[in-house]
């Protein structure tokens, strides 16, 4: 989630800042220029032989002007990217408590499996007879996802969570159109606490979005919701467990009311990690839900992607699933790739057949856990979050009172009120302590929100140190040591960055310095 710079950036040197070095490096923290500053156009790190002379078939469309790309030799390239990598915090570095992001351990077995040539080096348009193992894997992963969610079908092609949301909502739109209600049912209800992708996805495909408020306990206001249901409502998009870390207790009543009103229940599955093996969304009345394989099933986040967002669908929505999908053709598996073979399908949302590389990793993760391990992982994730809650609730305030949470715990900034320290400052001070901050300022329903999701990957010793650290910071803030927070971080590769300056005068690429 984004930072809100609530204090002006302080440019005055702090006493804590060390004296400069000749190189500007500080031990292992090494300054690294841009490839455009260190590279040369004639240098290459890939040896290739020039082809023998031949008759070009470009028809006069040769690119003649210089492109402007620098080249680096292999040692320079390796050093450049290793140095850059050392400026990043990662799960492999330490606890990464970003709420709603499920930063769990990424098993290396999954990486090895995804790199088997039989998966990594096959083309999406090879004859289907030559990729039966790949189709088998997609079918098997789909079977696991349907069993875990208690649903009838799964669309495998969405490329990330938001893409899955749009996919699920398109299936809903197609189902509504098939009932002849396309012109009237145009409204989608979205709780205020939802991820921004929910309203954006609904709006992207032509729905009108209306917010519904939360109650004092952080749950969707059921009365308000039912009051807004009617013949113009197409669907509600519910996140469950919600972004406050709470399970929507009335989900079954919500589903019944939504269905009785002729609408559909979409569920944002971003927080599925709390409930795998504990309850099944299909049993709760969910019609469509995307599953972030890069959250719940541990495919690496990779600094922002790639992800994968398969969407499970109820029986009512199954006929409208997008192409491609699998069909058993005797002994052979076959991809149905065109709507001409699936007249009710709403269409295609991306080229080819989905994020195969992520599918392999996710199935490797699931098979490693098995049914028992998946349930245990959810239980440990919820246990860890509650352990943090119980260990901090005497110091830090919770917007909806102290109650058991699911896999993440939400604090607000009421407890910081008189300290002069803001949520942002508290988060930045965590960086100096060697932690990635939690999600801050989201969800919007909590003032100065701090959303902590430890995941099941943390040991008790790791949690104990994290808790002790946050307690020390909290006591410092409450004890008047604002200095420790206001200018933080002091020890990161960079101190606070001027985001206002970046937005006011956008510099989005390197440009050569003007000649003197």
């Amino acid at each position, binding site marked *: 989630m984004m*930072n809100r710079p609530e204090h002006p950036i302080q440019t005055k040197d702090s006493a804590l800042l060390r004296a400069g070095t000749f190189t500007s490096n500080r031990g292992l923290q090494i300054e690294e220029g841009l490839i455009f500053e260190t590279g040369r*156009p004639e240098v*290459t*790190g890939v040896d290739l032989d020039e082809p023998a002379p*031949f*008759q070009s078939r470009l*028809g006069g*469309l040769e*690119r003649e002007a210089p*492109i402007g*790309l620098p*080249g680096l030799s*292999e040692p320079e*390239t*390796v050093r450049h*990217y290793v140095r850059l*990598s050392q400026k990043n915090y990662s799960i492999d570095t330490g606890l990464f408590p970003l709420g709603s992001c499920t930063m769990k*351990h990424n098993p290396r*077995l999954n990486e090895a*499996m995804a790199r088997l*040539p*039989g*998966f*990594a080096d096959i*083309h999406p*348009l090879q004859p289907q007879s030559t*990729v039966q*193992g790949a189709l088998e894997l997609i079918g*098997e992963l789909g079977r696991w996802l349907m*069993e875990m969610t208690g649903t009838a079908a799964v669309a495998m092609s969405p490329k990330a969570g938001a*893409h899955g949301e749009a996919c699920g909502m398109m299936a809903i739109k197609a189902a509504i159109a098939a009932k002849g209600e396309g012109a009237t049912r145009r409204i989608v209800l979205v709780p205020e606490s939802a*991820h*921004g992708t929910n309203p954006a996805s609904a*709006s992207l495909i032509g729905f009108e979005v209306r917010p519904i408020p939360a109650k004092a306990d952080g749950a969707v206001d059921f009365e308000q919701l039912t009051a807004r249901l009617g013949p113009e409502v197409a669907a509600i998009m519910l996140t469950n467990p919600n972004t406050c870390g709470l*399970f929507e*207790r009335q989900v*079954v009543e919500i589903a019944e009311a939504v269905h009785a009103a002729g609408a559909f229940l979409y569920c944002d599955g971003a927080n599925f990690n709390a409930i795998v093996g504990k*309850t099944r969304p299909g049993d709760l009345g969910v019609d469509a839900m995307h599953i972030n394989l890069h959250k719940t099933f541990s495919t690496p986040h*990779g600094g*922002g992607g790639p992800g994968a967002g398969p969407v499970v669908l109820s029986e009512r929505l199954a006929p409208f699933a997008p192409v491609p999908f699998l069909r058993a053709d005797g002994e052979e598996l076959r991809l149905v790739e065109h709507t001409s073979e699936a007249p009710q399908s709403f*269409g295609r949302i*991306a080229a080819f057949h*989905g994020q195969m590389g992520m599918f392999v990793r996710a199935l490797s993760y*699931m*098979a*490693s*856990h*098995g*049914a028992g391990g*998946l349930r245990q992982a959810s239980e440990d994730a919820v246990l860890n979050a509650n*352990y943090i809650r119980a260990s901090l609730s005497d110091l830090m305030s919770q917007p909806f009172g102290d109650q058991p949470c699911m896999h993440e715990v939400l604090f607000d900034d009421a407890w910081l009120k008189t300290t002069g320290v803001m949520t942002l400052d508290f988060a930045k001070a965590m*960086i100096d302590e060697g932690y990635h901050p939690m999600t801050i300022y989201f969800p919007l329903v909590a003032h100065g929100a701090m959303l902590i999701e430890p995941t099941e990957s943390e040991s008790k010793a790791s949690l104990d140190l994290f808790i002790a650290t946050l307690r020390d910071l909290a006591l410092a803030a409450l004890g008047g040591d604002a200095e420790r927070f206001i*200018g933080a971080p002091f020890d*990161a590769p960079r101190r*606070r960055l*001027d985001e206002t300056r970046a*937005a006011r005068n*956008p510099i*989005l*690429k390197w440009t050569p310095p003007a000649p003197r």
Partner: protein
Amino acid sequence: MRYLPLTPDDRIDMLARIGAPDVESLFASIPENKRLAQNLDLPKRKTEIEVQRLLSKMAAKNVVAGSAPFFVGAGAYRHHIPASVDHLIQRSEFMTSYTPYQPEIAQGTLQAIFEFQTQVAALTAMDVANASMYDGSTATIEAVLMAHRITKRHKAVLSGGLHPHYAEVVRTISRMTGDDVASLPPDVLARENLADLIDADASCVVVQNPDVFGNLRDVSGLSAMCRAKGALLIVVFTEAVSLGLVKSPGEMGADIAVGEGQSFGNSLNFGGPYVGLFAARSKYLRQMPGRLCGETIDADGRRGFVLTLATREQHIKREKATSNICTNSGLCCLAFSIHLTLLGEAGLKRLARINHANAVDLANRLSCVSGVEVLNNTFFNEFTIRVRGDADDVIERLAAQGVLGGVPASRLSPGQGLDDLIIIASSELNTDEDRATLASALQGVL
């Protein structure tokens, strides 16, 4: 379970701190009659050895591209990936980090994105590029929606040379939004006339170069025509290596350039994950979808990078955002960028020349096979042939002989009378022997 560090004793101690009698009580907010009393109907946990066995068995059922003379393209291309690329993207700090929302401890990812944006802008000869989209097809529909926002018009004109999957994505989303699409029929010989379709409702014209049949298209004239009619020109590419040798979208007057970046640094992966490239003229910057990384300074005045102009994005603007995209193709864009850094301008141009030379050689060889006609006048590393008989059948028979010979055009566009066409790609990975094998195998099956 090897990934779960808590011991049974830890769990008991932690429950005591929480004041909960058991773990189940933490799930009390789930209606009791909806809670699962027993495990899911799924297999029990597997050791690493067992998982390796299970997945290796599935992998072994596939014919690996590298094991056969391989000529399959049509939107995804098999290229050499230097060994250091995969090593570097597997650095923990790249692979297991999140979206760089805390820039002080994410400068590695942010600087890499800034370099990626600069490389993409240079490669396409456009002013600005974003931090990536999911793939080329989703980048294309985002470009169409962006053109609608800019022009306040609602019709997209799609060339018959556009990859049929890309066209289908545009048509699907447009049906949902109620926007119009004018799609031209498959244009095998690049002879279509798009000019007549650019009317007062047209927000954009979408043209692919090289097109799905491999033809090169000079869209400079079309650019002028679009400008005169108030529509934007969107140039799509699926083979990014072509940009090392073929005139770029920017040089031919594109307003938005989008494409697939898989060719650099990313394996075929049976279709994903890939990396969508998105670049535009700077005057359209604020209508762009996706993340942007910008340069700034820190509190000590040192150069640093941040995500910027986020007021376009879903987490700020919600239903008014320019796109719903959040997770993009982070690690794939890093692989792209590392590969391109290794190549550099000199290496890229040479790589592109080798691709073109190999394709020319293959086209020459296939022209000599009776029952085969090479249809293209121009091409980069891919072209279309007409064969005597059914292309699907020919490809299956080649596969039976261990040759992956190309893509039947009818697989992409069924029922359009393209049943005797095969799209064939050739890259630096094909040897003389591979090309000779394809020619003689084709001779054999025709």
